[in-house]
């Protein structure tokens, strides 16, 4: 392990680590909490739950969001569910199994102690949410109902139709509203973080752009929490919301926080394919559909041809002429293999010429068997709003015809490097939820993002941040007139000015689309040495083209969507560079990261545990120099490292 990377994983048996660590964390007394300020950036599940919980404890909290209300954060769009090791289904689930499934799902590239803690705390999250009035699905006896998700053989996913993220966020947002009303939390909406302020090596504040007035505003604190989600929009087309971006974590990286595993990005198997030329984003169809939907393509090429010409309906294809390829290839898990495995299988099927839509880039997700087995009412009760969403977009009702689905960028496992306390390499700077790297390794299992966001925000950060702040009770509030604030503001203003010039002509979207094409082709589902080198050259060219060609209309002192996009796209271009750099460095296949040179004869990932069983944490080394690699070696004391296998 690099001298700069101290993971602070406590000693002792795995199941006792968090308990004993909590006992060793220092406390801040209630009257001292009042003297301390904390900034939380982002109001998704992580940010809202953290801000609310810290407010309850008595800290002075300032929370920032990019939209007009905290409730609009993209956690709201999470559909399928949240995992917990409750074992309510009596199917022999346990904390250990949830931990093991998550580690294995991540292809043995996550930190053992963090993942165990995640599984351990998953149960109290469900309790907390129920207490807040989250209307989880219930069975007829009034008990919580659960279903299965990919990569597991138990039923541990709790849900509220396909609106689980929305309902959990309404719970956290309710808790946040309560603290806002009490005056413990102050909320700043329509603000975007522009930079982090580091004074004497410690995070002491942020600068934001007020998206309505265009003014740069200064805010100080004793600690800063980043909860701004992931950077999947680097691919242009993704399932992320339009405003989701990587700029906050990128500015932290440039201020010295290490960026871990940037190349680990999840491509979700079941999304609605690009449906029109000017489509702006891709819509996810929840993984929960794979509980009852079967994925298939025709076995015969002539059937594929006729489907594409629309002279054959899917229902006319005989059962014996259908290739249920996930059930065939992975009998033990069937359609519920993890996302990376399903994604690659769908891609192999389409690459071999069995794609079923006009451009050969889709497979069927079929509910006809489930309809026969369960009846239309039950299926509509389970998936009604997903079916409605699908029908509005495609005009096809999945009750009558199978869905057509194709993989799309969805989630980023990579993010800011954090220690066991969720602190980055900058003292006082924390990262939680999707913004950090810690729990999902090289591939995240379904329904684990909501779990992580809430575990981090409700039950980990409020404990660990106290340990840091215990030293700060005599430190006065940050002076926002400190010279570092002045310097940072000048840098931001210069950066904004450089984007305005009447002599240029290309919009931010133009560059974003170009970047997306490079990333999807070369740094997407399938990566290779030559492809990644090509991508790095192309990104470098795009970077110069952006500086010379970006045109932003309107004024900087106004609500200016074009300016917001230009700033985000310029960061995405740099993030893309680090992603490709990391992918090139990692000469193995693991989880979502598939290097063509490293595959088994069945086309599965071939890990290289001897050379690459580490977290790659990158340190910014100036804009013109390559970043510096630090390795956190992963040590597994409690589990056997195996070849990941979903066949048996």
């Amino acid at each position: 392990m690099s001298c700069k990377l101290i993971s602070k994983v406590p000693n002792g048996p795995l199941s006792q680590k968090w308990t004993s660590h909590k006992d060793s964390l220092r406390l801040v007394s209630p009257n001292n909490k009042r003297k301390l300020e904390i900034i939380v950036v982002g109001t998704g599940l992580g940010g809202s739950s953290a801000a609310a919980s810290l407010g309850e404890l008595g800290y002075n909290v300032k929370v920032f969001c990019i939209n007009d209300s905290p409730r609009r954060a993209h956690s709201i769009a999470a559909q399928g569910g949240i995992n917990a090791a409750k074992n309510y289904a009596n199917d022999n689930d346990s904390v250990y199994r949830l931990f093991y499934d998550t580690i294995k799902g991540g292809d043995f590239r996550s930190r053992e102690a963090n993942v165990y803690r995640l599984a351990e705390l998953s149960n109290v999250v469900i309790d907390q949410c129920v207490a807040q009035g989250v209307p989880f699905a219930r069975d007829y006896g009034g008990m919580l109902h659960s279903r299965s998700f990919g990569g597991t053989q138990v039923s541990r996913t709790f849900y509220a139709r396909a609106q689980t993220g929305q309902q959990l966020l309404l719970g956290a947002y309710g808790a946040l509203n309560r603290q806002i009303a009490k005056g413990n939390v102050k909320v700043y909406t329509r603000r975007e973080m522009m930079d982090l302020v580091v004074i004497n090596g410690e995070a002491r504040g942020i600068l934001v752009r007020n998206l309505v007035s265009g003014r740069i505003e200064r805010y100080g604190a004793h600690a800063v929490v980043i909860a701004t989600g992931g950077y999947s929009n680097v691919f242009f087309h993704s399932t992320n919301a339009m405003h989701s971006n990587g700029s906050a974590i990128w500015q932290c990286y440039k201020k010295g926080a290490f960026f871990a595993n940037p190349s680990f990005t999840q491509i979700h198997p079941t999304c609605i394919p690009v449906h029109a030329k000017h489509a702006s984003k891709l819509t996810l169809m929840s993984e929960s559909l794979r509980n009852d939907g079967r994925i298939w393509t025709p076995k015969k090429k002539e059937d594929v041809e006729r489907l594409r010409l629309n002279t054959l309906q899917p229902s006319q294809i005989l059962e014996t002429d259908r290739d249920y390829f996930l059930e065939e290839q992975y009998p033990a898990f069937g359609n519920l293999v993890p996302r990376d495995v399903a994604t690659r299988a769908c891609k192999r099927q389409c690459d071999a010429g069995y794609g079923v839509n006009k451009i050969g880039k889709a497979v069927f997700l079929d509910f006809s068997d489930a309809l026969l087995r369960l009846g239309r009412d039950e299926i509509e009760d389970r998936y009604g709003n997903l079916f409605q969403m699908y029908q509005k977009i495609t005009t096809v009702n999945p009750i009558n015809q199978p869905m057509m689905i194709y993989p799309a960028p969805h989630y980023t496992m990579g993010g800011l490097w954090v220690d066991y306390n969720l602190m980055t390499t900058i003292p006082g700077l924390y990262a939680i939820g999707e913004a950090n790297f810690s729990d999902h390794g090289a591939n995240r299992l379904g329904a684990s993002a909501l779990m992580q966001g809430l575990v981090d925000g409700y039950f980990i950060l409020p404990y660990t941040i106290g340990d840091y702040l215990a030293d700060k009770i005599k430190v006065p509030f940050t002076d926002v007139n400190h010279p570092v604030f002045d310097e940072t503001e000048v840098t931001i203003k210069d950066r904004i000015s450089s984007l305005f010039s009447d002599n240029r002509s290309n919009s931010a979207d133009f560059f974003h689309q170009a970047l997306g094409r490079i990333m999807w082709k070369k740094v997407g589902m399938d990566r290779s040495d030559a492809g990644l080198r090509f991508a790095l050259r192309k990104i470098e060219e795009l970077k110069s083209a952006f500086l010379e060609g970006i045109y932003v209309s309107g004024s900087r002192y106004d609500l200016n969507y074009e300016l917001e996009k230009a700033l985000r796209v310029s960061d995405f271009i740099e993030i893309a560079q680090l992603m490709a750099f990391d992918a090139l460095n990692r000469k193995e296949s693991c989880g979502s990261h598939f290097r063509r040179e490293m595959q088994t004869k069945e086309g599965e990932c071939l890990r290289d545990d001897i050379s690459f069983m580490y977290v790659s944490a990158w340190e910014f080394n100036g804009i013109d120099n390559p970043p510096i690699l630090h390795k956190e070696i992963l040590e597994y004391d409690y589990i056997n490292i195996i070849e990941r296998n979903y066949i048996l």
Partner: protein
Amino acid sequence: MDFNIKVWRQSSPKAIGRFETYFLSVISPDISFVEMMDNLNKQLSDYKQDVIAFDHDCREGICGACSLYINGYAHGPDSEVTTCQLYMRMFRDGSTITVEPWRSRGFPIIKDLVVDRQAFDKILQAGGFVSVDTGGAPDANTIPIAKIDADKSLDASSCIGCGACVAACKNGSAMLFIAARTSALSFLPQGSIERAARAKAMVKKMDELGFGTCCNTGACALVCPKKISIEHIARLNRDFLLFT
């Protein structure tokens, strides 16, 4: 497809607004209304004009950011959709489409089609939650909840806070929005403890913020993208009376 897009332009909250009409050509029927707006903005940007400001984010009908009043309807002519899930195939080729912001005293205009909906947050801050702190919650299965109650709670809790109900209401009332939250909580044992005080506090805050009163025309429920039923308003009224 070709369209004339007649859009409300207003540079700032106090400025005098006006309609501008733009011609937009070669639009696929399979793109959404907000993607059409993207195209229009690209055209404006190409001519170096200020683009039209409008709220949007998730583009899958769940965040509640998009908020356009289209041809006289909140979220346009389709039913049970937000603006981002409204597709151009719903419109006649060659027609003129009128696009306005939400119009209501409770939602002042910020710019063009963007309105300030902070009042909704303030109403929820007045009581739209269960008063529990983090930690110490009993096991989730301690209190059974009948499936029908959990389902009804979720029906109400599907509200995305877009504000279409207020925009469609001739009185600019936020009663459906409030009722969606109070019902979502009142159906559950955890939320029913505070039901009376919650109803009182939220309605009081609504009145303070300049929203109108409800006269049960049902326009709100008709335009609601999430099918929130007006019956929740009756339930809210009952909760409100419980308090007094």
